[in-house]
């Protein structure tokens, strides 16, 4: 899988992680372009269904990142996220999903370098895991029709 370029969906909180990603860009920290960012108001806004939906639609990995504990713009959103996503992550592991499919992180607005490092690490993790074939919706017939209809 040398040339496998994973598609990763990143749900980043508006106040810290999104700003952190922005800083990584502004500071020209290099990181692979495999991440598609979706900005959310808070890591607490991330419904686990977002994660499942992303995988279902074909993402190879999903990253959720928010403010460090104690730094939430809304006081406590990330504490809730921490509980919920950990339980959710546990469930995914028990289900037998490759652990690389879902990652949770804390990135503050000043951690541009860390964001770049996180993405580098995570992209490599997903590359090692290979493409998501196990948790994606059945669409072979639609793909076939698309190719025929072209």
């Amino acid at each position, binding site marked *: 899988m040398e040339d496998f370029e994973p598609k990763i969906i990143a749900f980043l909180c508006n106040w810290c992680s999104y700003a952190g990603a922005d800083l990584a860009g502004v500071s020209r920290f290099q990181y692979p372009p495999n991440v598609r960012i979706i900005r959310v108001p808070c890591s607490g806004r991330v419904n686990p269904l977002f994660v499942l939906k992303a995988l279902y639609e074909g993402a190879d990995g999903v990253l959720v990142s928010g403010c460090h504990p104690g730094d939430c713009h809304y006081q406590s959103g990330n504490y809730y996220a921490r509980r919920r996503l950990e339980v959710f992550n546990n469930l995914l592991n028990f289900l037998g999903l490759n652990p690389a499919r879902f990652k949770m992180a804390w990135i503050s607005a000043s951690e541009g370098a860390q964001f770049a490092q996180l993405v580098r690490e995570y992209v490599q993790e997903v590359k090692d895991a290979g493409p998501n074939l196990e948790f994606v919706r059945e*669409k072979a*017939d*639609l793909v076939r*029709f*698309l190719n025929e*209809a072209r």
Partner: protein
Amino acid sequence: MLFLKLKRENFFQALGEFSEYALYVPRREGERVLLKETSLQDLPENLYFERTTGSAKEILFPQEETLFYFKRYEPLERPKLEDRKKLVLGLRPCDAHGIQVLEDNFLNLEPVDVYFKRRRENTLLVTIACSQFEDNCFCDSLGLGPDRLNGADAIIYDLREAVGVLSRSAILSEKLKGYAFQFQEVENEDQVEKGEVPRRDPEQLPILSPEEYLALISEDKLWEKISSPCLGCASCTYLCPTCYCFDLQDVTYGPVGKRVRTYDSCMFGLYTLEASGHNPRPTLKERWRQRFLHKFSYIPFLEGILGCTGCGRCIEVCPAGIDLREVIKDVAKFKR
């Protein structure tokens, strides 16, 4: 109709004539009995098949079916019709009654449903007369009986050394003839030799006329009583051999998509919920009335046959233990 008698070994040989058909029979998989493709060699010698967990409708009306593919931004559609020929062996007479109800809805009432039609034309349904009554089944109480042809193309009777086949399908009759040691045209299915058919004193169920049922439409107390333990799940309707209600949904992938037909259930609140928020069947009371009257009044009205096969699946699976036989009795008490 042709009635044929074949020696057992000849019957299995005769099935070899259907090489262009995929053979489907009920097969046990863990806790469930499913209709599965199988090879001729794997058929049981005694031709005994367990009753399927789900109903036979899936062979002609699958839970999920693509009607057509389309391009989203260009006028292009491509219907998807299934052409696979199937020989389905080992279903029960009650399953065949269910098929008849489906045929009436999809084929006999205009307009014709081309998807169902194509499948029906490509399917040979050969049922086997029951050798015993199953748990909770009550076809005999509905006057249907475990030895009837109903909507099947042919039914098999166990005549000990021989196999009796009553066929109304030209294809089946033609192909089986060469293997039979005896065959004759018959007018009426009661004329044929059926071997040992299970008999019992049927439980007496008071089945009213469609009009009498319809007259109970506004007996709110009755429907409320019946529906009060109901949970509103769809296990009864999804497993029912005559429930044919469906939903249509679009599934997309980039610029293309498909329209998919899936089972739907009158027991769900969303089933009749209108976009405005108005729901003409807001509670389980109305939904139960719909489910019951559809089977016992509307289908008899529109199609001339009973919309219940007496297979008992709904009784077996109901998580609230609602017993349709008792419901039938309760309803009859309200007859005016």
